[in-house]
C-alpha cells in the first residue's frame, strides 16, 4: 500500500522516509474524525505532550519509533502516552460531559 514503508534508521541520525497518511483516512468516518479532532484540542489544553503524540501518530501517520526519535524519548513511553491519549479521546467522544 502506498505510504506504508517503514522508517529507516540511519547511522548517527534519523531519517523519515515516508509518512503514513492512510491511517486517519481509513480508520474512521468524517464525523468521528472531526469529533476526535475536537477532543484532541481539549486534550491539548490539559496535556499537550499527550495530544501531540496522538496528533503525530494518528493524523500525521508517524510511527512510534519516529515520534520517539523526534522527541528523544523511549518508544515505550511514546506508546504508553498514545494509549493514554487514546483512552481520553474515546471517553471524550462518548461523553457529553466534556469538561
Amino acid at each position, binding site marked *: *500500500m*502506498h*505510504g506504508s514503508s517503514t522508517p529507516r534508521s540511519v547511522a548517527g541520525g534519523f531519517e*523519515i*522516509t*515516508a*509518512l*503514513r*497518511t*492512510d*491511517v*486517519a483516512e*481509513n*480508520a*474512521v468516518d*468524517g464525523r468521528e*474524525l*472531526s469529533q*476526535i*479532532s475536537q477532543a*484532541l*484540542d481539549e486534550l*491539548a489544553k*490539559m*496535556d*499537550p*505532550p499527550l*495530544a*501531540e503524540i*496522538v*496528533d*503525530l*501518530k*494518528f*493524523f*500525521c*501517520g508517524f510511527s512510534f519509533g519516529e515520534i520517539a526519535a*523526534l*522527541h528523544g524519548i523511549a518508544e*515505550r513511553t511514546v506508546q*504508553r*502516552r498514545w*494509549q*493514554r491519549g*487514546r*483512552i*481520553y*479521546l*474515546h*471517553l*471524550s467522544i462518548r*461523553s457529553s*460531559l*466534556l*469538561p
Partner: protein
Amino acid sequence: MPTLDPNRWQAASPYLDQALDLPEQERAAWLKALRAQNPALAADVETLLGEHDTLSRRKFLEDGPTPLPPSDPELQAGETIGPYCLLQRIGEGGMGEVWLADQASPVRRQVALKVIKQGMDTRQVIARFEAERQALALMDHPCVAKVIEAGSTPQGKPYFAMEYVRGNPITDYCDRHRLTPRERLELFVLLCEGVQHAHQKAIIHRDLKPSNVLVVEQDGRLLPKVIDFGVAKATAQRLTEKTMFTELGVLIGTPEYMSPEQAGLTGEDVDTRTDVYSLGVILYEMLVGALPFDPKELRSGGFEGIRRMIREDEPKRPSTRFATLGERSGESARRRRTDPSSLLRLLRGDLDWIAHFTTDPVVAGAANALVYTLTVTNPGPSVVPASQAVTVVDTLPLETGGWMATGTDWSCAISGTGVSGDPYVASCDWTGAALGVGDSADVLTLTGTVDAGTALTSMSNTATVDTTTDPTGPNLSNTVMTGVIAESELTLMKSGPGSVMRGVVDALAYTLTVMNPGPSVVPASQTVTVVDTLPLETSGWMAAGTDWSPMARSCTYTLPRHPSSTARVARLPLTRSEHMADSERTASGCRWRSRGGRSPT
C-alpha cells in the same frame, strides 16, 4: 470515571502509565494493592484500563485497512450536474477535471465546472466552501473570477462552479506576446490589486500560480483574472506525501509556488503572506523566465526534499538566476524584447532587492524601504489594545542632554526628533545603566506601555531621549515609542518610484522576508535587532550568536540600518524539529479541518 474530570484524569494518569507498563496478568494484583490505598483512584484507573482493553481490541485509532470505495465512472459530455450541462472538458489536473458547462437557470451562461476527484469528503469540502461563501460573494473585482457555488455530482464528488475565463496563464501570455518587463510589471500590479481585494475581504487564495491567473484581453486592455478563489481552502488537505504524489509517485501539487508555511507539516497555518509569497514567485518567473528553485532540482529530493528546500534554502537573486541560465538567457531576454545584458542590468538595478532582499551593500538602502514596506503592508493594529505593552529600542545614537539614574523610567522621556533621518525600529530590555550628561548610548532600552486608543500610525520614527529632567523623573504619560519610518518618507516612497513599483513593493514585502529566510543563528560578529512587524509582542534585542529559532514563527526579524551593521531582513526558518517542539502549534497543527487565515488588518 463517567465524566472526564480533569483533576481525576490527572490524578489517575501516572497510575495508568504504571498499569499499562505491567504485563496483563499482573494488573489485577496491582489494582488490588492500589484499591487498598485509594479505592476511588483505583476505580478510576480500573475503568480507564477497561477502556484501554476495549480500544485495543477495536484497534481504535490504529490503522484499520478500510478499502476505498471504487472510483466513479468518468464524466461525459452531455451529462447534467445540478443546473449545469457538461459541454467540453477543458482541463485536467491532480485535483480533478475542469469542464466547460452550460447553465440554464437562473441565467443562461457558460461556466467552468471544477469537479474534484474521488478521495475527498464531499460534505466536508462543501461545508468548508459554504463557510466562506458569504465572503466570496462579497468579492467584486475585475481581476477576480467569480465563484458561483459548490455542490456535489450524482456520484457524490464535490464540484465548484465559477465564472468561465477564456484566457492563458499569465506567464504563458507574457512570453507568447513578448511583453516587456515594464508591461509585465503593470500586469502584475493589476494582479496584486485583485489579490489585495480578496485579502481585504479576508479571503486567502492559498494556491496562486500562473495556471490560476489567466490573462484576458478585455476592452482593449490586458486583465489578469485570478480563478479558483475558495477552492483551495475548501479542498485543503494536509501536505503529505500522499497529497503530493499519486500512487505512481507522480507529483500532483505545484510546490514551486508553495510558501514555506504551506510546506510545513500542518499545511494549514497560512495567512495573506502565503499568497504574497506565491505572487513573489510568479513575479520572479515573469521577470527572469525561471523559477526561484529549479523544478528538477526541487523535485529530485522527493517529498522531504521539496519541503526542506522550500523552507530552508535561499533562492538565488533574480539577476544571479538569470546570469546562470546559460543559453536560455538569450531566449528569455528575447521574449522580453530586450537583450540579456539589458535585462540583467534591469534586474540588478531595480528589481533584485524587491524580489530578493540581500545583504549586498549596493542594496542596503533598500533596508529602509523594506522595513517601511513591511509595516505598511502589514500595519498591525492601528490602535494598540490597552493591555498590550510595546517596547522600543533605538539602535541609533541618542542625544542625551542630562542624566538619568539607573532604573529611571525612560518611557517618559521619548519625544522630539531623531539624530539622523534613518528609521529605527527596535526594542529591548532596559540596560539599567546610568547615563550622565552628554552621554550617548548606541543602544538604549526603552520600555513603555502604549495608551489604549493611541494610533500607531502617528508614531514618530525618531526619538531623542531627553534626560534634562530630575533623575527621579516626572513620569509623563505613557508614550508610544516605536515607529518604522516617518510619514514624509512614506509619502516619498509612495510617490517616488511610481505606481508600478509601489504596487510591487507593497506586494512583495512579505515575499522578501519569506524568500530570504536568513540564518537561524546570527553570526557572532553581528548584532541584531529584532522587530516584529506583526503584533508587537516579541520584540527584543538578540545578542550576537543568539539562536532565534525559538521565537514565534510569525515574526519578521529586521535589522535596521545601523552604522555598524549590515541591514538584512530575515524570516525565521522553522525546522521540523522546532516545529515539533512547539507543542501548542503542533497540537493544533496536523489536523484535517482548515483553519481560517488571519484576516488582513
